[in-house]
């Protein structure tokens, strides 16, 4: 039972990550590979505020969210100058830079040792599951509202034909920055939940392969489909657990996971680039 609760919490956290990344990749057509950076900023921000400054979780997560959003304004402004391939590459670069900050700003982040003893807002795992699911549900409602609003329609228009929507007087760059910052904030929320749930974080959780993993979730589920992202999170969180039951040693199992994600991306690109229930093809 405890094990199922654990998986449920992970599904909730990755669900939030998937939903927020889908706002960028699926709805706006911005293939960002730097989501783990904001996930990490949220986790580190919340963890440090709780451990070092003694803030409560309820104050720490909004602050962490703001921190990530601030960082995303800077990163988003630089990224807004690029398109397609170069956008991917530059976002790739920001993930490496932020990861290297986590790893090397030892006076703040304690480097590879990580931060331990992060408090939880609720003691039992079951209550934490309910908390995560509540946040996940609110995120889903928010994303649904956002993508169905006129704002969301502009995003899709940017994705489909940026030039055309500019002719109608919409400033695509503003919209792209706004959605980038929104997605970063939601990723930071997931990070705060993760830090508080595991009670320990270190830089290795927030590297490039985590960004690729989140990308795999939304591509599997389907781009521009919010329920698809949730389904993707369920599938990809549960998948490695099956590998665990097959009985690989833990180090090999971790690599098998990566292998399967990579394979999944390749197979999807070859045979079903829109994912399971996607409404947009890359």
């Amino acid at each position: 039972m405890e094990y199922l609760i654990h998986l449920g919490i992970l599904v909730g956290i990755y669900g939030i990550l998937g939903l927020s990344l889908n706002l960028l990749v699926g709805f706006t057509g911005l293939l960002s590979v730097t989501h783990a950076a904001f996930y990490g900023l949220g986790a580190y921000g919340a963890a440090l505020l709780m451990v070092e400054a003694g803030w409560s979780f309820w104050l720490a997560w909004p602050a962490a969210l703001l921190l990530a959003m601030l960082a995303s304004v800077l990163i988003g402004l630089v990224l807004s100058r690029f398109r397609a391939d170069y956008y991917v590459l530059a976002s790739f670069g920001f993930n490496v830079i932020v990861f290297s900050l986590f790893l090397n700003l030892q006076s703040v982040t304690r480097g590879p040792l990580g931060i331990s003893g992060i408090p939880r807002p609720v003691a039992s795992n079951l209550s934490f599951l309910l908390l995560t699911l509540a946040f996940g549900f609110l995120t889903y409602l928010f994303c649904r509202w956002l993508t169905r609003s006129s704002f969301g329609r502009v995003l899709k228009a940017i994705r489909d034909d940026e030039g055309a929507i500019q002719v109608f007087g919409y400033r695509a760059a503003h919209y792209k920055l706004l959605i980038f910052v929104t997605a970063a904030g939601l990723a930071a929320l997931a990070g705060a939940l993760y830090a508080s749930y595991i009670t320990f974080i270190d830089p290795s959780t927030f590297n490039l392969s985590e960004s690729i993993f989140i990308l795999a979730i939304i591509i599997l589920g389907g781009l521009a489909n919010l329920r698809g992202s949730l389904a993707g999170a369920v599938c990809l969180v549960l998948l490695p657990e099956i590998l665990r039951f097959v009985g690989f040693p833990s180090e090999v199992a971790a690599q098998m996971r990566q292998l399967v994600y990579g394979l999944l991306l390749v197979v999807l690109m070859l045979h079903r680039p829109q994912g399971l229930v996607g409404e947009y093809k890359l």
Partner: protein
Amino acid sequence: MDIVPQLVANSVIAGALYALLALGFNFLYRTVKFFDLSYGAIAATGGYTVFALSKLAGLSIWLAAPAGVLAGALLAWLINLTIYRPLRARRASNLVLLVAALGVMTILQAALAIIFSSQFQTLSASLSTVVEIAGGVYTVTQLVILAAALLTFVALHLLKRTRLGKSIEAVADDVEVARITGLKVERITSAVVLTAGAIAGLAGILVGFDTGLEPTMGLALLLKAVIAAIVGGLGTAFGALFGGFLLGAVENFGIWQFSGEWKDAIAFMLLIVFLVFRPQGLVRR
């Protein structure tokens, strides 16, 4: 002791490796027209092939090294045949190719870690004899890297004069026109992929001799190759060479000012500065 000559030496060594990788990456990019993010992992596979053959199977290094180069070439060829070529045939967008390449990179990295474990491995110390040139200390391996980069540059330059080289130029300039004039586009692409894969394999082996191998090394190698190629100016071999040495210098003088851990961040700052202010790179085509 004055530190500058050694810094120059380190810049030249690092730069030679980056230049070698960037030459291969750039050569590939000219024809396939997308950032093949699996390029670094192919280099890693070349290095590990030599590790398996020489350390585990006990083969002489003079046999193992060519096998490693060949492994890089064949792997790149196989990936192109099974993944990128069908995608191109379907006229998939570059983003699809990029995501597929991310997948390939993840697969290769995980496969290497499963087969060889995530432990750091070194190839051999027999080439670590030290030579002093102009106040800086170089190992023989590092001089081999420098020679490899320069020879690759010359070889790619000479290739342009051959019939194959001219066909490659034609395909890189305009695939459709090349096809209309009767060039076998896919065969020429395969030749490019094989060559680029061989260069990657060679670079991976040299890294194995110089610093050592780990499954995740491909990512770092890829990033350095891309950064050097873009900084130098995508599409020109001279740019790749120049960008490689510039990146090596910026990194090493950056480390001197800050510290070693910031190497990757410094490299990326250089990339982002270039992408923002001079996206066409230093050398124009």
